[in-house]
C-alpha cells in the first residue's frame, strides 16, 4: 500500500481540522482565506479529474463543463428553494448548512448525470478523439447555459448566498481524496489501473473496461459538480464563460504536473498552481507569461510531473534519518 495508511482516520481528522479552522476564520486575513478556499476547490477538481485522466488513462478536457453543471444546479437550489424553505430571514445556521448540503448534492448528481452522458460514447473513442468529444460536451453545456434565460443567460446568476467556507471546502476536498484513494485501492478499483495500463490486455482477462471508464467519468463528474457548487457559493456570481475550455485546461495541467495517477502529487500541484499566480501578482503584467514559460520548462525538465516520486518512500527515508539523528 503506497498511499496514506489510514484513509478513514485522515478523512475524519481533516474534516475536524477544517471545522476548527472555520470557527476561527474571522481572525484570518480575508485574502488568505480566499486563497485557501481557492486551493481547496482546485484540489477537489484536480483529484477528481485524476481519477479519469490519471488512474483510468482517459483524456478528458471537459471537467469545467461538469463544474458548471454543478455550479448552476446548486445555485438554482439555494436561490429558488432557499427563500421558500428558510423564510425571509434566511433561517438558522444549521438550516442553511442543510440546504447548502442538499444543493451541493443536487449539483453533484446533475454533473454525474452529465458525466454518464459523456462516458457512454467513450467506449468507441480513445485518445485525442475522446479528448475532443469531452471538450465538445463542455462547450455545448456552456452554450446552453448562455442561452437559457431562466439561468441568467450570458450574464450568469447573481446574488448567490455566501455559504462556502473553509469547513465545507476542506470537508469535501477530504471526501474527494478519500473516495478516489479508497476506490482505486479497492479490489474493484484495480480495474481502473488495468484499463489505464493496457486496455487490450485488461479486456482479454475479462475486465469490462467500458464500465470502468463510465464509472470513472461519473465519479469524477460528481465531485467536479460539487466543486462547482462550492465555487458558485464562494464567488457569489457565476457566468457561463467562467467555465470554458481554459478552465478545463487549467485542471488538466494540475493533474499532469502532479504526475498522472499520483494523488499526493496532484494535490501538491493544485496547491502550487493556485498559490503561484497569487505570488506572481507583484509582477502582474508578466504573470501569465511566466506561468506559461514555467509550464514549458517543467515539461522539458521534469517530464513525469513535478511531484512524481513515491511519497511513502520519501516519508520512510525522512523517518529513518530522524531516528538515526536521535541516536
Amino acid at each position: 500500500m503506497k498511499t496514506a495508511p489510514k484513509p478513514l482516520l485522515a478523512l475524519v481528522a481533516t474534516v475536524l481540522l477544517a471545522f476548527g479552522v472555520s470557527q476561527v476564520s474571522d481572525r484570518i486575513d480575508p485574502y488568505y482565506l480566499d486563497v485557501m478556499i481557492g486551493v481547496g476547490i482546485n484540489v477537489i477538481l484536480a483529484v477528481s479529474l485524476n481519477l479519469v485522466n490519471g488512474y483510468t488513462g482517459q483524456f478528458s478536457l471537459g471537467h469545467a463543463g461538469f463544474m458548471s453543471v454543478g455550479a448552476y444546479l446548486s445555485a438554482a437550489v439555494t436561490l429558488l428553494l432557499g427563500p421558500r424553505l428558510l423564510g425571509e430571514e434566511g433561517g438558522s445556521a444549521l438550516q442553511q448548512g442543510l440546504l447548502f448540503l442538499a444543493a451541493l448534492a443536487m449539483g453533484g448528481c446533475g454533473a454525474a448525470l452529465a458525466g454518464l452522458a459523456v462516458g457512454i460514447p467513450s467506449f468507441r473513442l480513445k485518445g485525442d478523439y475522446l479528448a475532443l468529444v469531452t471538450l465538445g460536451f463542455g462547450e455545448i453545456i456552456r452554450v446552453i447555459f448562455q442561452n437559457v434565460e431562466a439561468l441568467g443567460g450570458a450574464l450568469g446568476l447573481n446574488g448567490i448566498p455566501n455559504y462556502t467556507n473553509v469547513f465545507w471546502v476542506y470537508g469535501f476536498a477530504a471526501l474527494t481524496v478519500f473516495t478516489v484513494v479508497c476506490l482505486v485501492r479497492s479490489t474493484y478499483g484495480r480495474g481502473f489501473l488495468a484499463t489505464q495500463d493496457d486496455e487490450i490486455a485488461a479486456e482479454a482477462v475479462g475486465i469490462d473496461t467500458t464500465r470502468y471508464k463510465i464509472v470513472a467519468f461519473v465519479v469524477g463528474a460528481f465531485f467536479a459538480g460539487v466543486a462547482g457548487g462550492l465555487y458558485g457559493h464562494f464567488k457569489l456570481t457565476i457566468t457561463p464563460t467562467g467555465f470554458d475550455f481554459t478552465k478545463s485546461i487549467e485542471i488538466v495541467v494540475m493533474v499532469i504536473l502532479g504526475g498522472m495517477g499520483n494523488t499526493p502529487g496532484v494535490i501538491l500541484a493544485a496547491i502550487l498552481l493556485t498559490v503561484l499566480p497569487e505570488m506572481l501578482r507583484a509582477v502582474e503584467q508578466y504573470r501569465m507569461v511566466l506561468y506559461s514559460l514555467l509550464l514549458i520548462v517543467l515539461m522539458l525538465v521534469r517530464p513525469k510531473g513535478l511531484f512524481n516520486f513515491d511519497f511513502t518512500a520519501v516519508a520512510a527515508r525522512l523517518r529513518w534519518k530522524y531516528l538515526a539523528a536521535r541516536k
Partner: protein
Amino acid sequence: MTEFLQQLLNGLSLGAIYALIALGYTMVYGVLRFINFAHSDVFMVGAFIGYFAGQHLPHDSVLGGIVALAAAMAGCAVLGILIERVVYRPLRGGPTLNVLITAIGMSLFLEYTGQLVFGATPRPFPSIIPARMISVHGLVISMNQLIVIIVAVLLMVALELAVYRTKIGTAMRAVALNPRAAQLVGINIDVVISFTFGLGSALAGAGGVLYALNYPSIDPLMGVVPGLKAFVAAVLGGVGNIPGAALGALILGMTETFIDGSRWSTYKDAIAFAILIAILLFRPAGLLGRYTTEKV
C-alpha cells in the same frame, strides 16, 4: 434563392479560412501524432505580421496585399520551425500528454506575450487590398471574400503539389505512414518535421491575414476560437488526412454560416461541436480517415 447563394458564399469563405488553419493541424498530427495547440496562436501572429506590414505598404493595392500575405507566411513559417526546434523536439518520443501540455504552454505563452507586446485592445486591420463590392443579380460579393476564396484555393493546390509531387513531400508522407521505416530508408526525420511545421505555419499565417481582412479587427486572443473550430474541422475530416481537413472545414464553415443566419444563431458554437460528436460516434476516424484496429 439569392439569400441562399449569399450564405453559401459566406460559408465558403469562412470554410476556406478554417481549411487553411486545419491543414496545419492535420499535417503536424500526421507526422507527430499530437495536437499542436500553439497553431492557433501562430495564426494570430500571422494576422499581426500582416497588420504591421500593411502599415508600411501602399493601401488598396493588389501588390501590397500580396507582399503582406507573403510576409505573414514567411514570418509564421520561421516561428513554427523555431517552436518545433526549441520546444517540441526535446520531447519527441516522450509521452504524448507531455507534448500536449507543452503545446498548451506554448499557446499561452504566445497569447500573453502578444498581450504584453501588442496590448489587449483590438486593433482595426488596415485595408491592404482594394475593398470593392461586386453585385451579380442581387448577389453581393465583397472583394475580400473573393480574395479569401481564391488565395485559399491557390494555397491548397500548392500544398497538394508540394505533398504529392516533390521529394520532400513524399518524405513527409513516408514519415506520416511509419517514422521508423522512413528513417531506415534514409529520410532525415528532423528535416521533414521542420518542413511540416514550416508549411503548416505558413498556411496558418496566410489564414490569419485573410481572416483579419474579413473580420477587420485583431487582438492577441483572436486565434483561440477559429483555432478550436479548425481543429474540429480537421478531426471531422479525419485527422492526419489532408483532403479530409479541407472537406471538414468546408462543412463546418457552411453549417456555421447557415445556422448564424437562422433563429438558432446563438447556438452556433454548440452545433459545431454537436456535429463533431455525432460524426465521431458513427465514424470514429472522421469522414475520410481510415479506422485502424489496434494490433498486439
